[in-house]
Structures are given as structure tokens and as C-alpha cells.
């Protein structure tokens, strides 16, 4: 069994077989414009009728009182308060990324076109537009510095070449320098979600086929199949999926009053649960609940290729403004999970947000495990044989 068959390679179609596949869908979560309103959390719970995930107590993590992703919380907004020193470090670590020979953009370009030119893109983009609004502007330099390895046609998608947005926000509007003074303080907010990995650990280790790769390239649990073995929980390198261990789906209250009789009951206790990227809505060509609700288009949804382009343009734009702390997470098809369906733009190291810095799908090591286990099996059998031959003489 070769690696290639055990775990899909970068070509996404490798672990899928569909008569009529659709282009792969995904999220782009731009945390630089997240306002931490948690509309995504609520919209997600309401649509999926997930139970409340809380003891109704302050958790002691800024405004975050749901803790993290889990069986009941499929979108989770993280809140991180940082001092100036930490911002400098983030900026530095981001610069270090740029300086590596990795997919990268060039150094901040000198201030581009005058701001008054305005920007032709963005404003009227509807909420479900893949590209979202306001993010499609990038400076002229981005075309030449588009990532070489990421597989995005670097030139297209850059419909708007005005650098007005970048220049104005960074320095003074009239062609000032893009050098940023570091604020004393910042409050990071970021909406986390299932990554819908190209190589999905949960999917690989699921014994029943409850987890499957959909025709949209997402990873979904089938509630009628899962028997709650829990293997997937440990299989996920991001700690996303979890077994729901209590009850039905209507939201609980502390008062013990019986729920409204008409509340739909779906018995989903005891099975693994996670974001489905709203598989049901996607089938009807609707936007997932979280992306639909997001007030600032921090959560964008669309074909993954488009998401990737948006993400790359946005990070280039931020770098032009001197905000070198910006970086993408999950955009690289060569990473340990083959790139994620949900791409994030982060403003600090991943572990600050509770994300692993170098996740790796556990099944990547499966061939080796098979070889070693095979050797152990043979060894044990040989030992057994020896016991009754050599050992017998004693």
C-alpha cells in the first residue's frame, strides 16, 4: 500500500468518487475584519439546532464564553488581548514568514496610486458573493508577487488594481509612508470552524463510513450511520470534531421547563458532530448559515479556488500597508493536511488562536505504521513458533 493510496495527494479528487462532483467549496475567514459579534455562532446553532454548550458561567477568556469548537459549537469566536510587545513579535514573525522561501509577497511597495482614485470593486457585492466585498482590492505589486506554489492564476481575479485602499489606511491618505506605528494594544477576534481538510484525519479513521467526503469536497458526518466510536475525535489534528454526549437538540435552559412541544427533536446524542459547512443548504445552493449572517464579511464562502485568491489578495494588501503580521493559514496544499477547505487570515502565530502550528493528518504515517505493525505481527508469530520449537527444548 503506497502512501498515495492511503492518503490522498494534493489532487483533491483522490479520496472522492462522485458521478457529478462540484467545484470544491470552502470558507475564507478574514480575522482582520472580524468584530467578534458571534453572529456566526448563533446562526450556526440556530440552523443546525445545536444545544447550548455552556454552564452559563463566565469562562475567564475575555469575551469568549463558549470555549472552543466541539460537538455543539461549530463556529467559535476567539478573543485575544495583546500588548504592544506581542504585536511587535507577531509582526516580526510574519516578516520572517515573508522572508522564507515560501509562498510570499514582496516587500511593502512604495505608496501606490493616489487614494482619491477610489476603488471600483467591492461595494455592491452581495453577501453570498464568493469574493465578499471590499477585499478584492490589492495593490499593483500583488500581481507580480503572487504565490508561485499555491496554484492560483496569479493575474486573474485581481480585477481592481487601485492601491487607494491600502495607502490610505496605512499612512496618510496623500501618499504618506506605509510604515505603521504599532498600537499599544490590540484585541484579536477570530471565528474558528472545521477546516474541511484536503486530507482529513477524522474521515480517514472513521470505521463506519459515517464521515464522508461530499460532492462539494467537504467532510460531513452522517447522523444515521455514526455509532459514536469516537475514533475521529482523536483523528482530528485541530480538535474540531467531538462526540455529543448529551441529549437532544433543543436548547436547554436552567429552569427545567419542558421545551416547546413543537421543537424538532433530532436524536443526535452519542454521535460525532462537527461543522457540515451546511451540507443541506449547499445542496440547495444556499450560503452556509454563518457566512450568510456575518455582518462584516469576515466569513466568506464560495469555491475554494476563489477563496484562495481572495485570501492571497487580502494578505498582499495588508502587507503593503505594512501589516506584516498578517498571514494565511491552510492555504498551502503542501502542508500536513494538504491545505484546508477553510482558509484563515491570521494576525499572529496559529497557537495564539488555539490552532496547531504544524498539523499533520495522522494517517500520513499510516504506511509506516502498517509496516511496523506487520513486522510486529510477524515477530510475534515467529516468537510463537520459536516457543514451541526452541523454547520447547528447555
Amino acid at each position, binding site marked *: 500500500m503506497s502512501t498515495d493510496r492511503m*492518503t490522498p495527494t494534493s489532487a483533491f479528487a483522490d479520496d472522492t468518487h462522485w458521478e457529478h462532483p462540484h467545484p470544491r467549496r470552502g470558507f475564507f475567514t478574514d480575522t482582520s475584519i472580524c468584530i467578534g459579534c458571534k453572529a456566526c455562532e448563533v446562526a450556526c446553532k440556530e440552523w443546525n439546532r445545536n444545544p447550548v454548550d455552556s454552564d452559563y458561567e463566565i469562562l475567564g477568556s475575555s469575551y469568549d464564553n463558549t470555549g472552543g469548537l466541539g460537538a455543539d459549537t461549530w463556529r467559535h469566536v476567539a478573543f485575544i488581548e*495583546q500588548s504592544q510587545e506581542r504585536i511587535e513579535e507577531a509582526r516580526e514573525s510574519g516578516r520572517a514568514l515573508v522572508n522564507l522561501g515560501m509562498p510570499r509577497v514582496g516587500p511593502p511597495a512604495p505608496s501606490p496610486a493616489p487614494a482619491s482614485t477610489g476603488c471600483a470593486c467591492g461595494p455592491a457585492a452581495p453577501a453570498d458573493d464568493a469574493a465578499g466585498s471590499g477585499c478584492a482590492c490589492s495593490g499593483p505589486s500583488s500581481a507580480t508577487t503572487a504565490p508561485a506554489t499555491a496554484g492560483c492564476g496569479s493575474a486573474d481575479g485581481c480585477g481592481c488594481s487601485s492601491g487607494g485602499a491600502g495607502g490610505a489606511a496605512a499612512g496618510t491618505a496623500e501618499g504618506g509612508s506605509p510604515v505603521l506605528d504599532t498600537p499599544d494594544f490590540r484585541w484579536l477576534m477570530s471565528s474558528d470552524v472545521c477546516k474541511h481538510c484536503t486530507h482529513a484525519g477524522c474521515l480517514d479513521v*472513521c*470505521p463506519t463510513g459515517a464521515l464522508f467526503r461530499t460532492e462539494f469536497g467537504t467532510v460531513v458526518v452522517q447522523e444515521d450511520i455514526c455509532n459514536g466510536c469516537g475514533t475521529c475525535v482523536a*483523528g482530528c489534528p485541530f480538535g474540531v470534531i467531538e462526540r455529543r454526549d448529551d441529549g437532544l437538540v433543543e436548547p436547554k435552559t436552567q429552569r427545567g421547563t419542558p421545551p416547546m412541544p413543537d421543537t424538532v427533536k433530532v436524536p443526535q446524542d452519542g454521535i460525532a458532530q462537527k461543522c457540515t459547512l451546511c451540507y443541506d443548504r449547499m445542496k440547495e445552493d444556499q450560503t452556509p448559515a454563518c457566512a450568510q449572517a456575518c455582518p462584516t464579511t469576515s466569513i466568506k464562502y464560495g469555491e475554494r479556488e476563489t477563496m484562495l485568491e481572495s485570501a492571497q489578495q487580502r494578505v498582499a494588501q495588508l502587507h503593503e500597508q505594512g501589516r506584516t503580521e498578517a498571514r494565511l493559514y491552510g*492555504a*498551502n496544499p503542501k502542508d500536513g493536511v494538504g491545505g484546508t477547505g477553510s482558509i484563515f487570515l491570521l494576525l499572529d502565530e496559529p497557537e495564539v488562536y488555539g490552532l496547531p502550528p504544524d498539523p499533520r493528518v495522522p*494517517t500520513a504515517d499510516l504506511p509506516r*505504521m502498517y509496516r511496523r505493525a506487520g513486522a510486529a505481527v510477524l515477530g510475534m508469530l515467529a516468537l510463537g513458533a520459536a516457543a514451541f520449537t*526452541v523454547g520447547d527444548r528447555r
Partner: protein
Amino acid sequence: MSVSPYDSYRPPEEPRRRRRRRNRPPGGGAFRRGGGDGSREVAMVPEPEFTSYYGRPIVKAPPWDSKIATYLFLGGLSGGSAILALGGYLTDRSALRRNGRLAALTAAGLGGVALVADLGRPERFLHMMRTFKPTSPMSMGSWVLATFSTNAGVAAAVEVDRMTGERLPLGPLRPVLHAAELPTSVAAGLLGAPMATYTAMLLSDTSVPTWHEMHGHLAFVFASSASLASGGLMMLTSPVSQTAPARFFAVAGVAGELVAMRVMKNAMDPLTVEPLEQGRPGTWLEWSERLSIAGGLGALLGGRRRWVAAASGAALMASSALTRFGVFWGGKESVKDPKYTVVPQRNRLEKRRAAGITDDSITTAG
């Protein structure tokens, strides 16, 4: 938290509905962690510095409890017993054969019950047979367990029939059953080894840091542990006259486990070894090692004396159980602190970068 002089006047609060929320340590800000909480035993490696999200875990532990740890032990015991039963069958050691077969079936049966009981939806245990997934050790293990149990079951049935003087109401099936004795014994014996080791893959094919770090060697540890456990069981249950192969099996297992465990720990990221060496898992593994050495020595030196053999056998079985519990719970401990996830990952990332591989990071500048 009670600092007000008035607190003592408060009536006891109504207990709030408590829901177990896993992985929630008391937090206090996005803190830079300077390592452990001070109560831990001596750290093996310098404590790393990194910023976590309020100290919350990154990966999640599977929702498995001691039932699964028990199964790990029983599966090994069962697989090893089947091998010894096959040997006993082929070399005509009737007690070894009989006890091995019965042990194999009983352990597999109990283990299966433990497995099913641990499911979130036990009534759906048959879904395990729904698909055949090479990427899923649990799927492969289910197939192994099912085939192994069937074969071990037939072999055990023959044994029971024989023990009851062929009084089982088998009717015309008896000849068929007895004809199947050889093929099923061989099959059970051969499947006994994967039965004893696949659980290593089950654990290490996860993102649980300590388990995954073990993936190169855990199979050897578990195979050895299964050998010494089943050898021990036979020493305990069978007359010494027939248990020489079992003693050999056990002693080799002890040696194998000692070596494999050492090698494994050396190959792991040092930080991820920590959960195996502290707390309860650490104690268990320590005792496991002591018991296995004692049992091994007992088998080697006093295996021909019945009571020494029995005591050594029991020690070996206990050692195996402790090994499985130690590894199991050590792994579960390793998800509680994000450092076990983050630091090894950062280390390997740095290592790759140092080696000039810079194009495979999940974090990119564009």
C-alpha cells in the same frame, strides 16, 4: 474566590446544572506559558515558551475510558492465547490448547463487550462492518476482531464440546465443527498477532501527541506485552509440564517489551514522553516494568515450580494491563496541555526549515 466578609452569610447556592465540559482548565488571560504548574515532577526537558489560547487544549482526546484500556489488554491477551493454543494444538499440549482457546474466546468476547459498551450508540455496533477502510485502524481492527472471534469461537466450541463429553446438542453439525477445528485454530492463531497489535495503530493513528509520537514502535510494545500476558496466563492456568513454550513466549515478550519501550521513548519527541513518566500513568508504567521483570525472572528461574509459575504469570498479566493503562491514560493526559501539541510541532517545523524545506508550512505569507 471568597474574599468578602459577607460571603459566609450567603446561603448555600442552588447547585447549577453541571455539565461536564472537557478540557477546561481555569484560565486567566491569553497567557504566555512558562511551563508546568510547579506541582509536576521534574521535567525532562527545558520548559518551552509559547503563547497558548488561555491554556486550552488544541486537540481533543477521544471519548474513550478505561473500557477501551481494558480492551487493549484483553485483545492482546486473547491474541497471544490463540497463538499459544495453536501451538498447544499442533504440539499436542492439551491443557495449553484448551486453556488457550477458552482464554482467547473469553478475552475477545469480554473485550468486544467493552468495545461496544464504549460506543456512543451501542445498538449501531454492526455499522463497524459497513465498510472496509484500510485508512481506518478501527475498521481494520473490527474486521480482524470479527474474523478472529469467529475462528476462536469455533475452536473454543470444539473444546467445550470435548470437555462436556460431546454432549452439546449439535446434531449433524458436530462432524462439521470438528472438521473445522484445524482451519479455525490456524486462522485464530495467525490472526492472534494482528489482534494483539492492531490496537497500537488504533492509538497512534490519531492526533493525540503522545500516542502519535509512538507510532513507529508501539506495535512492538503491544505485541511483546500481549506475548508476556498470554504466556503469563498460561503459566497461571496450565500445569508446568506443558508451559515451557508459554514461559519462553513470556520471557521473550518481557525482553521485547523492555527493549521496545526504551527504543520507543528515545524516538519520541522528549516532551511527549513526559505524560508517560509522571502522574498515574507514570506510576503504572513504572510498576508495569517492575512486574514484567519480576515475572520474567520468575518464569526464567522458577517457571517449573507451580506456585512460582503462577505468581510470575499473574505478575506478567498485571504488568501487561498496567502497560496498556499507562499508555492509554498517558496519551489522554497529553491532550490536556497544549504544550504537548504545540512544542513538538514547532520543533519539527523548525527542523524542516533548518533543513531548507520551507514550502510545507500551513502558515504562509501569501
